[in-house]
């Protein structure tokens, strides 16, 4: 499943993942293209979220997980012994299903991690970073007069954009999104989708979605997972118009899932 002529950002080679005795991912080989949106689709429990969490080593937090194979980002296997998972997560931002701003001010939400990572110092530089991050997330106009009010006081869609701004502020290369709009109303979903379109200029985006129409609308490439296996991976148009795998075909048609 090679994608010719594109810069590859993330490569997974023979990735297997077990939760205790249960194998959740089976021999995943995939190449994710730089500065494009890649959607991971599939029915519940197919392993798409698990795979997403392998890319920033979030699965390391679960005691019972064991992983074989590797994920290479920018030429380095992130599961190598000399790679610190905290550093990996700094380079790979993540947006979750439920908006989860810190119960602190909007400003602190964005500024906290960059200050910890010494990306900026307190003061004007930090203010600037907060502003540019909020602008990139399309939230600046709505919150510029209330940066000190709590991030949790915003609406669901605004909170999710705040979480995106917070992820961007750490200056990652990749943004992982785990069903970022499934808890949001259609209008907020539209805003976030438009935002992703603009973000892909600078970031490689991998999004897990339950919503096939969403994948169709925004993704450049789509990967279909089924029972822990990668069924088909191709350009979105090809997956939706002429899938070669029969299971993918049935899933796209809505026969199951």
């Amino acid at each position, binding site marked *: 499943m090679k994608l010719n002529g594109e810069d590859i950002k993330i490569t997974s080679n023979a990735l297997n993942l077990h939760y205790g005795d249960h194998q959740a991912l089976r021999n995943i080989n995939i190449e994710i293209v730089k500065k494009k949106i890649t959607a991971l689709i599939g029915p519940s429990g197919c392993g798409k979220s698990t795979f997403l969490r392998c890319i*920033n080593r*979030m699965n390391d*937090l679960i*005691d019972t997980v064991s992983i074989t194979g590797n994920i290479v980002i920018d030429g380095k296997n992130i599961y190598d012994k000399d790679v610190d998972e*905290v*550093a*990996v*997560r*700094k*380079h790979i*931002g*993540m*947006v*979750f299903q*439920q908006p*989860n*701003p*810190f*119960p602190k001010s909007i400003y602190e939400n964005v500024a*906290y*991690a960059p200050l*910890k*990572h010494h990306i900026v110092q307190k003061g004007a530089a930090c203010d600037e970073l907060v502003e540019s991050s909020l602008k990139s997330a399309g939230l600046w106009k709505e919150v510029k007069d209330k940066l000190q009010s*709590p991030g*949790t*006081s915003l609406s669901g869609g605004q909170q999710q954009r705040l*979480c995106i701004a*917070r*992820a961007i502020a*750490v200056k990652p290369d990749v943004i992982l999104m785990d069903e970022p709009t499934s808890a949001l109303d259609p209008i907020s979903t539209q805003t976030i989708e438009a935002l992703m379109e603009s973000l892909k200029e600078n970031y490689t985006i991998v999004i897990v979605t339950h919503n096939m129409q969403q994948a169709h609308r925004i993704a450049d490439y789509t990967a279909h997972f089924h029972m822990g296996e990668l069924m088909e991976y191709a350009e979105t148009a090809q997956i939706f118009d002429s899938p070669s795998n029969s299971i993918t075909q049935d899933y796209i048609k809505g026969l199951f899932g």
Partner: protein
Amino acid sequence: MSHNPFYDPSLSARHRSAWLFKLFTKGSILFTLAFLLFFLFDMLKTAFPAIWQTYVQVDITYSERTVKYTNRAVHKDYRKIVSRAWLRNIPKQVEKNPDLMGKTLSMWVLADDQVDQYMKGHHHKLKQKQINLIEEFKASGKVSVEWNDIFFSNGDSKIPEYAGIQSAIVGSVLTLLVTMVLAFPLGVMTAIYLEEFARDNHFTRFIEVNITNLAAIPSILFGLLGLSVFINLFGLPRSSPLVGGMTLALMTLPIIIVSSRAALRSVPESIRHAGYGLGLTKQDIVKDHVVPIAMPGILTGSIIGLANAIGETAPLIIIGMIAFIPDSPTSIFEAATVLPAQIFTWAGMPERAYVEKTAAGIVVILSVLISLNAVAIYLRKKYEIKW
């Protein structure tokens, strides 16, 4: 009557039983409330006289002889109505003010506790002769009932009119200070380790079970532990706030750990994930995000633990904090007593005057507990995070 499609014959009986059930629940709360109010009212009524103290105006002679034999300073007839404790202070008065020597002055002097009880209309042991004397004094305005500052400025005394609660308050404060300084950081850190860092294995589960069990151990056993380990083994001073505080810290620890863990557990997992997703370290996440959110719960639990410790008597009796302490301790190494132990001591005294002092002591400890709870509620509100 027209046909009613909603008619259900069983309903009237069900409604009746629901009404009865509601009555029972309401009844229990009223019953409890009535008891509580009765207790409070009775306690305040008994304690109220303790804030007043009787004084009499008599002639006091200051001389070489009366400094030596202080009860000679006052006329033989009046000796029974004047406080012995006040007379004992005559040498001190002279030392402070040498001009008094050789003078006879008409002074307002603390009355004997029996006179005080008579004035308050309580049971007393005065003889008819003394009663007549008091009535005479009253007629000439030589008796006065005044605000009892002795109760708050003195330590314990075997002479009731001279007994106060100050040394017990100071003892309690010092003891609880030791308790908090030890138990709060240890408890919160333990809770953070168990909740945030520890892996779920047999060892941590063993620790958990033991902490929960620790909370259920009778407090007197902690006293025995304090006696055998802190006093006998470590050789720390007996009856001291240091040992008392350490013993109470052992008792308070499980309360703080259990409540802090509950508070930490109630912090949504999504907050931790948000932190990991940003490449923060565990310490950043715990220190700056999880603990602040859990803080109101941690503080409330700790204050409840502290309130428990204030009322604790049994373990402190074992380590000797029931000592007779006339002067307030000035450090945590001196012998001291605590409020509940002081109340316990007074409750066992035969003199009628100690009844009101006991009640007043209880009112003091209740006020401390109520203020602590108020502080807990205030802190909870102040640091509460609005989602």
